[in-house]
């Protein structure tokens, strides 16, 4: 059997691997079935394929546990009817009792995590497409509109990172895709973190401490001196980083 050829031990049927992935969260703001149903229908009209077979985490962090009966099963049913695949429910611990009947995996809340990036990419699809205007926003891009300060890190794990504010010295930007900075870029910027050499760093005021594209770093900026404080586009050319005026 060819499948077994790569395995040293014939009795190995699987391996458990730890992996990170970005998922969309459907964050309930109400438990009113009718409201949820209406919004889901609206959503489906705007982007007919968006919800179809979409894996989501259902978050109950923003709604209070009802005192009497809990209609969570009806809500789950409604979501599934619209095509969503709920793979886990995230809620505070006191919800667990009421979630027992759902038979869906339970996740504790994220609030205990420290130094969470300022933008939450997993919330983005819903928040942005829920806006009644049918804007074609790419769900994988992360947009940050407040300053990224020293000691902070922002990641766009799936796409481009767009920062509309200053990036301080000591701050760090990471993106699978391109990085665009519309304020001064004084911190570190790492584009193409998964190895895509066709990515770039675009900024209106170049003053970075470090730039990297697909693993190739540059901390000594003397070769780029003539672009200091100016608009610049940094990209990979073979093994080298190159710069051009914007």
């Amino acid at each position: 059997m060819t499948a077994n050829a790569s395995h040293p031990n014939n009795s190995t049927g699987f391996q458990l691997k730890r992996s990170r992935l970005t998922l969309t969260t459907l964050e309930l703001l109400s438990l009113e079935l009718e409201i949820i149903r209406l919004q889901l229908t609206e959503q489906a009209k705007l982007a007919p394929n968006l919800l179809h077979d979409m894996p989501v985490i259902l978050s109950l962090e923003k709604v209070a546990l009802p005192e009497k009966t809990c209609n969570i099963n009806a809500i789950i049913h409604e979501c599934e009817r619209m095509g969503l695949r709920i793979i886990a429910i995230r809620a505070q611990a006191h919800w667990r009792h009421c979630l027992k009947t759902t038979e869906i995996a339970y996740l504790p809340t994220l609030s205990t995590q420290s130094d969470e990036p300022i933008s939450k990419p997993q919330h983005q699809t819903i928040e942005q497409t829920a806006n009644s205007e049918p804007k074609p926003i790419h769900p994988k891009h992360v947009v940050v509109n407040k300053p990224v300060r020293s000691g902070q890190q922002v990641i766009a794990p799936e796409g481009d990172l767009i920062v509309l504010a200053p990036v301080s010295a000591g701050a760090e930007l990471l993106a699978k895709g391109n990085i665009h900075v519309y304020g001064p870029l004084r911190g570190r910027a790492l584009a193409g973190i998964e190895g895509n050499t066709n990515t770039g760093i675009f900024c209106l005021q170049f003053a970075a401490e470090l730039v990297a594209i697909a693993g190739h770093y540059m901390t000594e900026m003397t070769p780029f001196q003539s672009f200091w404080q100016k608009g610049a586009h940094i990209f990979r050319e073979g093994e080298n980083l190159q710069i051009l005026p914007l």
Partner: protein
Amino acid sequence: MAKIIVVTSGKGGVGKTTTSAAIATGLAMRGYKTVVIDFDVGLRNLDLVMGCERRVVYDFVNVINEESNIKQALIKDKRIANLFVLPASQTRDKEALTKEGVGRVLEELRKSYDYIVCDSPAGIEKGALMALYYADEAIIVTNPEISSVRDSDRILGILQSKSVRAEQDLEPVKEYLLLSRYDPERVNRGEMLSVSDVEDILAIPLLGVIPESKAVLKASNQGIPVIHDAESDAGQAYADSVDRFLGKDLPHRFLEVQKKGLLKRMFGG
């Protein structure tokens, strides 16, 4: 309901305590019932700057641990009505400042005061985190040098991610820059950052520029907040800052090298 103002910086020795004393006094002088709290547990010196060190009986940690009530620990200012000091303990360690304890004390004070000014310790450890956790507004004290500006930037990031307002997605903490120990002569010589350099990096509204001034040391030695010294440059700069905080639109002063008059030159100024 009181507004909670934190005076913070990251870096040590930049003028937080001087500023807390001056701003709290200035607010009380303008009729607002104000309390200033020393969060620098273990190193207390707000009481020295406020001139009430001999009247400290109970302190902030006693109140948190419910060993005394707030009334017993608050020290009424000798000079200004409406002004109170809640001193820090000199002996206990910073672990005494718990989220619940600090929250409970601030909640109680909120009911009967207009402003609560929190004098933060340096650093980004527990004491500093607790001083900013409940803040509505923040005065970021910065000296015109790179390391101080960098630390202020760091603190601004923490304010926007680790305060109650950030955690609960409320309106963000309102931030003000207070540039202190400003020496225009050294700025001209290129030894210090200019006002616009600092504004450019931190990108938050400028509340005031306090000049480097002998009046500050004199005031703290006497235990009289420098804002009482209405003749002094630093006293006037703090008074302007309080007025700006309360919404007045005033031009910034003391940004240029002061020309010494003939008399001052002869007798030393």
